[in-house]
């Protein structure tokens, strides 16, 4: 039985508000499950906007976004939020962590909002914090001292690894990373991406990775250049 695509969108158009210019106009895009996709685009080209649409935080002005076979616009707001917490892990560029939560609490955060990810995370009989610890260990953050530090005292690289563990906990089908490495130095970048790949492979997650950094492109099996698929960018260019 052929599985539905991880992501499938058609004739997508989006403007932020009435009166603002259109940001996205994409006729077709499909990402298979388990794929690792690099989305390249200049700053301001609409990468974050696209990712927010894929996550169902914003709805397209026209067209349809299907995630794991589910038409996002057919869900009401709270269903969409549920759907997101169940199926999507998110990593931002910077300041990914909630400053008043501990490292472990930050990692376990999605499980507060998603029952299915909580069940996934504790399936092996682990507590949530055990699972958070295990993920951190895989990402090279085994140090007890690090784990008990306030998150605001972690280095950027450490913060991004905590954010990655948070995106991975409960094994969501899709991981969306929005320029997660742009604040890291180049050695850290390579290491970070290797760890991210390794964990996505383990859970079989689909990875969407947005960046304007061409150096990283070669590590990915599939590349999408936003300016190429987005008609808006072409017109401007």
């Amino acid at each position, binding site marked *: 039985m052929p599985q539905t695509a991880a992501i499938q969108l058609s004739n997508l158009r989006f403007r932020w508000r009435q009166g603002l210019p259109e940001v996205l106009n994409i006729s077709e895009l499909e990402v298979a499950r388990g794929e690792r996709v690099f989305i390249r685009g200049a700053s301001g080209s609409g990468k*974050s*906007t696209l*990712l*927010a649409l894929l*996550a169902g*935080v*914003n709805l397209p002005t026209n067209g349809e976004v299907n995630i794991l076979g589910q038409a996002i616009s057919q869900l009401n*707001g*709270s269903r969409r*939020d*549920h759907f*997101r*917490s*169940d199926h999507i892990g*998110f990593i*931002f560029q910077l*300041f*990914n*962590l*909630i*400053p*008043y*939560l501990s490292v472990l*609490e930050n990692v376990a*955060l*999605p499980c*507060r*909002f*998603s029952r299915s990810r909580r069940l996934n995370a504790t399936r092996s009989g682990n507590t949530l914090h055990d699972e958070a610890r295990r993920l951190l260990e895989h990402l090279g953050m085994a140090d007890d001292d690090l784990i008990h530090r306030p998150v605001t005292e972690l280095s950027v690289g450490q913060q991004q690894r905590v954010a990655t563990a*948070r995106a991975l906990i409960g094994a969501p089908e899709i991981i969306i990373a929005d320029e997660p490495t742009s604040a890291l130095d180049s050695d850290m970048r390579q290491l970070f991406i290797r760890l991210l790949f390794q964990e996505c492979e383990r859970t079989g997650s689909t990875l969407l990775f947005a960046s304007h950094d061409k150096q990283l492109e070669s590590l990915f099996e599939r590349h999408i250049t936003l300016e190429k698929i987005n008609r808006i960018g072409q017109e401007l260019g």
Partner: protein
Amino acid sequence: MAILSLAFKSLLNRRFTASLILLSIALSVSLLLGVERLRVESRNSFANTISGTDLVVGARSGAINLLLYSVFRIGDATNNISWSSYRSIADHPKVAWTIPLSLGDSHMGFRVLGTNRDYFLHYRYSSKRRLSFHAGGPFEQVYQTVLGYEAAKALNYRIGQRIVIAHGTGKTSFTLHEDKPFEVVGILNPTGTPVDRTVHVPLEGIEAIHQGWIAGRQLAGLQISAEQALERDLTPKALTAFLVGLKSKLATFQVQREINDYRKEPLLAILPGVALQQLWDLMSVAENALLVVTALVVTIGLVGMLTVMLAGLNERRREMAILRSVGARPRHILLLVTGESLLLSLVGIAIGLLLLYGGLLVAQPYVESHFGLYLPITLPAPREWFMLGLVGTSGLLIGLIPGYRAYRYSLADGMNIRI
């Protein structure tokens, strides 16, 4: 609930500002409740100043004026009542007892009250409590005195000591009845009423020290010694007022009317409960003003919270975006920010209660000994619960303002934050 625990942690993270907000809310809440307690208790204690007395009788003037000088020893009577009028009412068949009151002298700023032993027998305060002795007992002879608790304590007097009464009621009266000192034979227990500040002497004592005086002045060359005075007829010629107890309460209005219609002299009989109520109503403007001021203080505390919450909101847009990315709904964001205000208000209220009871514990003995006001340490009264509920609800409603703004932000921003 998960969101409220986030709200709690977020506050804990900002514990310095949070504790300042808490402090201002707690202080204002304890002030509000403290004022309310004082108000209720002073009203109670006020209403309890005199009880068991059916009528207070004095020369015709205003009801409140009569109450003030006869019961509270404030101000002076405009006129006296003649002894014969007093006797004829005291002998009325429906009258069970009377307590004569003769005022006009003082001792070191404390009012001197001339009365008889019926005072110690029939006078009641609070819920029908009678006077009891801390030391000694009632006076038995002309030159003896019984002191109210506070008067004795303030002046550090003991049984057996002799005191001199001053003519008039000024604190530093220069005309002293030095030749006729009174021996302290009794000290009363505290009552929380003006009795505590009264120096009691027999009517005959008042009469004795004024032998040789006319119209408030000592006649020159007419010195009458203490012993000589005792030889004379010491039946008083006049009284300031008297208290009446009836055999049956049903007769109250009838006897009141008879006294008010008394032919030989213009008299006024009042029901003390009614007059107390009127007097208190006169003061209720001040009482309400005080309550309004404290309510404003609470409002200021809550507005302070609002200011801090709103000011911090912009910095928290990223936090909201992160929460949205892990599945929090805009509703959760509203709940998180509003929940913080609610938590602050509730904890502020709880600390305010602690401060109130702590304050009561500390202040209780002091307030009782200095103001004769007993502040009971009891659970909040329904009205106080209502006030607390109002503060909590206001905190919640005020919290909705930053909550709603955060909600709007999170809808507008989605996850795209460019800070």
